[in-house]
């Protein structure tokens, strides 16, 4: 790649033309370079050759991004974005569990010990001191909207049987909500279910979109639903069955 005009001229041209094009270093060397084709194809394979090269280059960039992400993950320093993310994630998990606990207490209704309900509600309020506590599902001071109908359409594409559960604060602004990746709950190492989303259709129904890949393993997957501020507004639970 760094051969210059002086290296080629004179004398080396014949040798260069007579032999096949050697495999050589590109500007961005990586493991993906191993798939680099050594021989240029015939003219009728021009497109195939070009597309293969383009995929090779794009693969290098994907790998480079992954390497960069991995290096960020180990980088020290108080301002590391990953550390902030970790903190956010921890807060999210804490909030999720407190919210789910509140939901559970609601299901228990009057059977729930009064003291326990007070403790949980106080905890939730302290976590979200600047948020109207009535915005959370099942809260003691739930607003009037809690009484309104919530109509939900589930658009689930899955090659396996699934069970879907949606917990959602009734006053949530659907258009601003984001469903985080659904992470396996009952086993570690399972790939998450990505791309789940919420929307509102023309008739005002909440539409839950979930696509389960054919290779998704059986398990219980849970993803938080957060608003723009990162506050948890609900949870989406998916049980992928055999």
């Amino acid at each position, binding site marked *: *790649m*760094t*051969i*210059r*005009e002086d290296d*080629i*001229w004179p004398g080396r*041209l014949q040798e260069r*033309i007579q032999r096949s*094009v050697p495999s*050589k270093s*590109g*500007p*961005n060397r990586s493991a993906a370079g191993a798939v*680099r084709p050594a021989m*240029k194809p015939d003219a009728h394979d*021009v*497109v*195939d*050759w*070009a*597309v293969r*090269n*383009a*995929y*090779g*280059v*794009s*693969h*290098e*960039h*994907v790998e480079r*991004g*992954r390497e*960069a992400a991995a290096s960020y993950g180990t980088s020290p320093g108080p301002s590391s*974005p990953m550390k*902030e*993310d970790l903190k*956010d994630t921890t807060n999210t998990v804490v909030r999720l569990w407190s919210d789910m606990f509140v939901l559970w207490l609601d299901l228990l209704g009057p059977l729930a010990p009064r003291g326990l309900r007070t403790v949980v509600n106080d905890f939730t309020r302290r976590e979200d001191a600047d948020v109207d506590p009535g915005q959370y599902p099942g809260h003691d001071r739930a607003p009037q909207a809690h009484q309104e109908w919530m109509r939900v359409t589930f658009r689930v594409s899955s090659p396996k049987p699934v069970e879907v559960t949606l917990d959602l604060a009734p006053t949530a602004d659907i*258009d601003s*909500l*984001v*469903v*985080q*990746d659904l992470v396996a709950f009952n086993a570690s190492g399972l790939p998450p279910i*990505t*791309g789940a*989303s919420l*929307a509102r259709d023309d008739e005002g129904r909440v539409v839950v*979109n979930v*696509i389960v890949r054919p290779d998704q393993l059986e398990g219980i997957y849970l993803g938080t639903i*957060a608003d*723009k*501020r*990162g506050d948890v507004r609900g949870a989406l639970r998916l049980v992928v069955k055999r």
Partner: protein
Amino acid sequence: MTTSSRLVPQVLEEYGAATRSVLFRYLPDAEPRRYLYDLVADYPRRGGRALRPSLCIATARAFGGKLEDAVLTAASIEMLHNALLIHDDIEDESTTRRGQPTMHARWGVPLAINAGDVLTLMSLRPLFDNRRLLGPRLAMQILEETERMSRESGEGQALELGWRHDNVVDIDERDYMGMVVQKTCWLTTIHPSRVGALIGTGGGIDLDPFIRFGCLFGLAFQIQDDVLNLIGNEAAYGKELDGDIHEGKRTLMLIHLLENADGDDRRQVTDLISRPRSERTPEDVRWVRERMDAHGCIDYARQVASGLVGAALAEFDATYGRLPPSRDKDFIEELVTWVIERT
């Protein structure tokens, strides 16, 4: 493959106008106007197709976001693009940009470099303002994406300039594609679609597929751009025809010529592109162009661009295919084909 999209020009105009309305709010109406802020606003005022910000906004909307959530990021992309154009024109010694003299041709190199620097830094402001609009975490993600895109673009530009500086002629198609992906694709297609998807999903999406889509799409775009430099309508193209040969740019056509020309021709092409631009005469440029025609270099490049568009459409299906039908989704799909149909 669709042809002559009517949707693409409409959406480009619509999203381009939305982007510019925000962009100009970030350009100070203050002193020193004559030596700085008039220059900073010069290229954005000349217009342009707004392909990059439109792709960002359309992707955000296709993934469920709103225009107003994406428009700050779109404005930042357009500002950075214009800033880089100022510096590119200096580095390439270009004389025309969007139908007018380049900034350095009009104002001199020092003022143009400074205007480019300031516009680059000003492009960060909308990204900081994203914090209030999108929240700190998503705003930070977009900043990180912008940092990577900027680095990739700078590395790609360095490769191209370095090859010209050292008169490197042993470049093959793969080297060329690697350079173009960095120099062009990251800013033009990869980054706008990645940050658009981040905004549309609130950060909850795997961004790797957008690299594959953006590489194939952006490569087709750049190859067509290089073809238009040779055969385009100069008024519509906005730059001087055959300018790339004048500048000794390593294009797919030039690489194809170097690979296929016989001994004497190859020697002469190598000699011509090694000279400083000022020493390349119009006759030299015409001769290189004739050799390109003789070896079918333009047809070859068009064939490659068409193949890449086909592959980009396949990646579009994989990346955007599961989204519900929308005008924005249609726009992005038609945009892929449109880039090689434009004149």
